[in-house]
C-alpha cells in the first residue's frame, strides 16, 4: 500500500515517529537537561561522567525566590512588555488599516520602510539610537528601553494587523456605510471585532518579543535597566558560569512566554504569523 503513489501516505505514523524523535532530541532533551541543572544539589554537584545529578535539591529555586533582583527583574520585564505592547498597538492600528484598505501613492515605499527594522541588524539600530539617546538623556532609562524595543516590535504588529484587516471583505465595510455607519462606527462595530484575533495574537507576540529582547535592551539599558534576559546574560557571560542559577532564571523567563505563545498560537493563523515575521 505505502509505495503506491506517494500521494496517499497511508502510513502517516512514520512521520509522527520521525518528527516525535527529532523534537524529543532537539527540544525535549535540552529542556530536561536545563531542568535537571536547576534542581542540582549544591552539596554533591553534578560532574562528568554522571549522566544524571547524584541528588536533587530546591536550593537554587529557593535562592531565586528570596533573591530580590530576580523578582524585580521579572516585574520590570512584565511592565516593559506591557508598555511596549500598548505603544506598539496604538501606533500600528491606523497604519495597518491604511496599508490594508486605502490606495495611496508610494505605498510600496512605505511598506518597505516599515519592514526595514527587520532587515537592519538590531545591534546597529541600538547603537545608532544610543547616540541620540545620550543627547536626549534617555540612555540607561526605562523609557529609553521601551522606545528602542518598540522599533523592533512595530513592523511585526503592523504587518499582522494589515494581513488581518486585508482579509475583511471591503463589501462588509461598504454595507455598514450604506446602512448609515460613519468611519468611527465602522471601526467600532466592524473592523475591530473582525480584526480582534489579529489584535490579540499580535499583542501577545509583541509582549513575547519585548520580554525576550536582549541586545537592544542591553545596549540601551544596561547596567541600570535589568530585565530578565540581561540578568541571565550576567550569569552566563561573566567570569564564572553559574549553570544552576542560569537554569532557574531560564525557566522563570521561559514558562510565562511559552504560555503566552501557545495562547497566541491558538488564535493566529500560520500565514498571518509568517506575514508578520517578514515574509516579504
Amino acid at each position, binding site marked *: 500500500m505505502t509505495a503506491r*503513489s*506517494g500521494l496517499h*501516505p497511508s502510513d*502517516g505514523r512514520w512521520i509522527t515517529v520521525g*518528527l*516525535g524523535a527529532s*523534537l524529543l532530541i532537539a*527540544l525535549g*532533551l535540552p529542556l530536561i*537537561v*536545563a531542568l535537571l541543572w536547576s534542581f542540582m544539589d549544591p552539596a554533591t554537584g553534578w*560532574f562528568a*561522567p*554522571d*549522566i544524571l545529578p547524584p541528588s536533587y535539591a530546591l536550593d537554587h529555586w529557593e535562592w531565586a525566590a528570596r533573591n530580590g533582583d530576580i523578582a524585580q527583574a521579572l516585574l520590570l520585564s512584565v511592565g516593559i512588555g506591557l508598555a511596549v505592547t500598548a505603544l506598539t498597538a*496604538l*501606533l500600528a492600528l*491606523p497604519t495597518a*488599516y*491604511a496599508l490594508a484598505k*486605502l*490606495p*495611496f501613492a508610494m505605498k510600496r515605499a*512605505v511598506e518597505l*520602510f*516599515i519592514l*526595514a*527594522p527587520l*532587515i537592519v*541588524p538590531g*545591534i*546597529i*539600530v541600538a*547603537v*545608532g*539610537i*544610543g*547616540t*541620540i539617546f545620550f*543627547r536626549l538623556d534617555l540612555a540607561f532609562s526605562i523609557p529609553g528601553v521601551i*522606545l*528602542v524595543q518598540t522599533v523592533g516590535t512595530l513592523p511585526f504588529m503592523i504587518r499582522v494587523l494589515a494581513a488581518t484587516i486585508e482579509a475583511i471583505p471591503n463589501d462588509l465595510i461598504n454595507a455598514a456605510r450604506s446602512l448609515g455607519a460613519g468611519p468611527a462606527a465602522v471601526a467600532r462595530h466592524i473592523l475591530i471585532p473582525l480584526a480582534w484575533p489579529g489584535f490579540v495574537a499580535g499583542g501577545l507576540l509583541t509582549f*513575547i518579543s519585548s520580554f525576550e*529582547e536582549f*541586545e537592544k535592551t542591553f*545596549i540601551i539599558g544596561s547596567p541600570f535597566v535589568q530585565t530578565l534576559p540581561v540578568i*541571565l*546574560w550576567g550569569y*552566563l557571560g561573566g567570569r564564572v558560569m553559574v*549553570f544552576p542559577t542560569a*537554569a532557574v532564571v531560564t525557566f522563570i523567563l521561559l514558562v510565562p*512566554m*511559552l504560555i503566552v*505563545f*501557545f495562547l497566541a498560537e491558538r488564535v493566529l493563523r*500560520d*500565514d498571518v504569523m509568517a506575514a508578520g*515575521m*517578514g*515574509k516579504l
Partner: protein
Amino acid sequence: MRRLPQGVVAALLVLPSGGYLALFFGLPLLLAFLGSFGLYARGGDGGFTLRHYADLFGTQAYRDGLVFSTYLAIVPTLVSLAISLPLAMGLAQTFPGRKLFNALYKVPLVVPGIVAAFIVMTLFDRGGLAARLLTPIGIDLPKIVRDDWAVGVIIATAWKAVPFMTLIIGGSLGAIQKDIILAARTLGATPLTAFWRIQIPLALPGITAAFLLTFIGGMGAFAVPNLLGPVYPLPLSVHMYVNAFERNNWGLVAAMGTMLSLISVLVLLAYYRTTRSLRTAYGGEVR
C-alpha cells in the same frame, strides 16, 4: 459633510508609526552613516573624513571580524535551510498528532538567544551532557563551544532559525494549489520531480525571504557569538559593542554598522533580483 481626499487620510493614518520609525530608526541610522564619515559625530570635529573606514580595513582583527560576521550569517542559514525544507514538507502531510507538532516545533521562536546559548553550553561544552553520553561508547567529541569554526554558534543560531524558516517556507508551500502538483503528477512527474520542478520554484519567494532574514539575523547577532564563539576572530557586532561602550570610539562603530548594513542591503537586492522574475511570472503579488 466634507470628505478628505483618500491620500490625505492615508498620510494621516501612516503618520504615527511612520513618524516614530523615522525618528527612532531612520534618523539614528542616518546619523550613524554620516558619523562614519566624521559628520555630526559625537566627540568628533565635524569634518569629513575616511579615517574610520581606514581604521576598519587597516586593522587585521576588524577585517577578520567582517569575514567572520559573514560566515556566521551564511553557514547557520544554510544549515537551517537544509533542515527546514524537509521539515516543512513533512509537516504538510497528514499524520497522527499533526496539530500538536505544528505548535511544538515553533517553541524555539520564543526562546531567547541567550537561553539557546545556555542550552548549547549545557549539552556541548567540555564536560557537557553530549560528551558524558558519548565518551563511554568511545566517541570523543571535538571542541564545539568556543571553537575555531564556531560550531556552537552555528548550532544555537540554527536551532532558533529552523522554526522561523519552516514557518515561512511552509506557508509558501501551503499556498500552492494542490491541483497544480496533481497536474504535474498526471503529466508524468514523480513526487520528487514535482517537488523540484513545481513546488520549489513556486515557493522560492518564501524560501529566499526566510533565507534573507535569517542571514541578516546571523550577521548582526551579538549575544550568541559572544557566549559561544571563539576568542579570535570576534564578529563585527562584538567589536561594535566594545568600541562603543568600552572605548567610546563612535566613529569606528558607525563605520562598522554601515558596513554590516551595506552587506544586508546587498543581500536584499539579490533577493529582489531573484524574486522579480517570479513576480512577473505570477502576476499576483509576492509578499
